[in-house]
């Protein structure tokens, strides 16, 4: 269907509106391995010194501990989001229960809650259950924050699974739980996968919640670490170094994204209506 029209004008317009992104990301990468004269954006030398932070903790502090923390943080969030969204989404899509429509409406409305501005309330809840300033607390809050989205997405995916499969399962004598576990869950794998990617990307980049709800340095995540490195008041501050750390921080996300892009794009595979 493409042959009747020249593509180049479209490509040109696309290139123009994409310029900021192209430049920002190109320089993000270029600057980490080059030096450039002051006042110029054009690099004039190649260097790996901006990456020394990987092996030299004096440059910006140890980067590996925050990395591990972030991995742990991300993984826990993904697990919780998947676990809860997949059960709740199923319930909302498939199960009989009282007030079902209100649950769904409430879940949808929760998108509208500016959780980050309700953070004092969140803080008090955490404090009450003794999870303030703990990684667990932040994980729970962050996971909770993603739940309305996750539940809604999963509900969409469950909606696309033919009822007949479920009926067949019930017919075959399986309990609803078994039907869900053994028959339905495998059908929504693409949804789970996309949601997992999405949650991972989101959790990996989270900045605000750890900063506010777990300010203790015991488990600094990379976003906080990066923000510290980016403090221009610091004597070790160096913009290219910052970019290297930033790139290091973002690379896992980019890799995930590059490898699983198609699966990520599935995120709305369950239909977007609503």
């Amino acid at each position: 269907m493409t042959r009747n029209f020249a593509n180049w004008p479209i490509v040109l317009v696309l290139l123009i509106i994409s310029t900021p992104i192209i430049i920002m990301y190109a320089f993000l990468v270029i600057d980490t391995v080059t030096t450039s004269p002051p006042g110029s954006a054009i690099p004039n030398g190649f260097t790996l010194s901006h990456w020394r932070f990987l092996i030299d903790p004096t440059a910006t502090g140890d980067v590996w501990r925050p990395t591990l923390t972030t991995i742990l943080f991300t993984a826990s969030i993904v697990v919780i989001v998947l676990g809860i969204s997949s059960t709740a989404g199923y319930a909302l899509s498939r199960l009989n229960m009282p007030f079902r429509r209100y649950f769904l409406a409430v879940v949808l409305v929760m998108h509208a809650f500016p959780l980050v501005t309700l953070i004092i309330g969140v803080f008090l809840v955490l404090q009450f259950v003794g999870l303030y300033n703990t990684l667990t607390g932040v994980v729970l809050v962050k996971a909770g924050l993603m739940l309305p989205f996750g539940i809604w997405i999963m509900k969409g995916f469950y909606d696309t699974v033919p009822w007949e499969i479920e009926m067949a399962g019930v017919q075959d004598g399986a309990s609803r739980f078994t039907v869900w576990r053994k028959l339905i869950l495998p059908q929504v794998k693409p949804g789970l996968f996309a949601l997992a990617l999405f949650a991972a990307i989101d959790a990996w980049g989270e900045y605000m919640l750890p900063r506010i709800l777990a300010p203790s340095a015991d488990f600094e995540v990379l976003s906080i670490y990066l923000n510290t490195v980016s403090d221009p008041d610091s004597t070790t501050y160096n913009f290219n170094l910052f970019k290297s750390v930033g790139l290091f921080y973002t690379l896992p996300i980019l890799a995930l994204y590059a490898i699983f892009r198609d699966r990520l794009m599935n995120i709305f595979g369950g239909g977007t209506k609503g």
Partner: protein
Amino acid sequence: SAKDVTISVWAGGTGPTNDYRVEAIKMAAEILEREAKIRGEDLNITVEGQTWTTWDDFKQAVTLAAESNTAPNIIVSGHEDIGTWSQSGLLRPIEDYVDFDAWPLNQLYPNLIDVSSFDGRIWGIPQDAEARPFFFSRSHLKAIGYSDADIDALPAKVESGEYTLYSLLDDAKKMQDAKVVEPGKGFMPRPSNGTDYWQFYLSFGGEFTDAESGKLILDKQALTEMYQFFVDAVEKGVVPATYLGMTWDSWHDAVAHDKAGIWHGGTWHKAEWEAKWGLNDFFGQIQYSLIPAGNEKGRANTITHPLVYLLSTAGTDEDATLAAELITIASEPRINTLHAVKSGHLAVGSAQADIPLYANDRWTTAATEQLLPHATALPNDPDFGVIWKAMYRGLESAWTKTSSVADAVNSVESEINASLGNKVVIR
């Protein structure tokens, strides 16, 4: 029987040059352990230090930690937090734990102890002090006709009120006209919010508290003139309307490399210029003075913004007693001097003048003698933050010409009125 104690110390606004804020406590712990050993006790103190480079995060963390009963034993913060925090019950009055009549606290400057007090009690021990001077580029002054002698006499002229903020604008303009500095770099104020801007308020005769009622004061006249001054500066072309929000990096780069005409900063900046920006001959390149008066109502001034060691209500009384002892030891002139000189801060006590490290540092000595006596401090009133926030916002909008000076002042007034009502005297 061994005794293990853990003392936590949190410090805000702290980076590599001022790491002695926490280190000093660690040194004190070591000394205390040794003392205990000699007494025959086995005392084992672990100091857990944590620092924040910025203030907003730090204050947020302290506040929330306090609410969750996980506040550190020792807090190192700006003195202006004393009001708020003491009221909320986060602090123990340190005067209940230490002896100000004994060494080394008896040599602390009394005015700094006042700064560490609120509502009749002493809540903190000064940790550092500084002055926030004006700086002039000697070479650029020369380029517009100043002789070396004129330059040397400049601080005195500032102090006497002969050289005002408006003289400064003229000089900055001249420097630009003489093409020794680029347009817009004649005058380079602090690029972000900070204590410094209150100095201009003082320059125009503003006051913080009403001596009579002890209430906070907002002097609209002074505020107007202060805003007007920056608008005039913009109009003269010595500073851009789009100046605020510039990166510290660019600022340091300009001022340390002699690209700027006149600017203001903190005494500690010298340390940073030398450590990071390759400034070699501070005294040969730069002249410094008080902040000039703005008009006849005001006076030349500088603000000191001491950080203080505070004792939180966290932990047992025994921990607090120990923490207070650590703070006391950390206030020994020798130990405090390490911080002062490394970070470009000023002494907190008179005895530091006799510590060679301090005495041999020309800058600290000079600043102590010439600037510190003129220093005032911000009030500790818990409500001052509201005024501060409003003041800076007004400054931003007047400066960027988002609103007129009068409107800016009015919205500061209405904001303060709305949140503080009659707790503040507006005049």
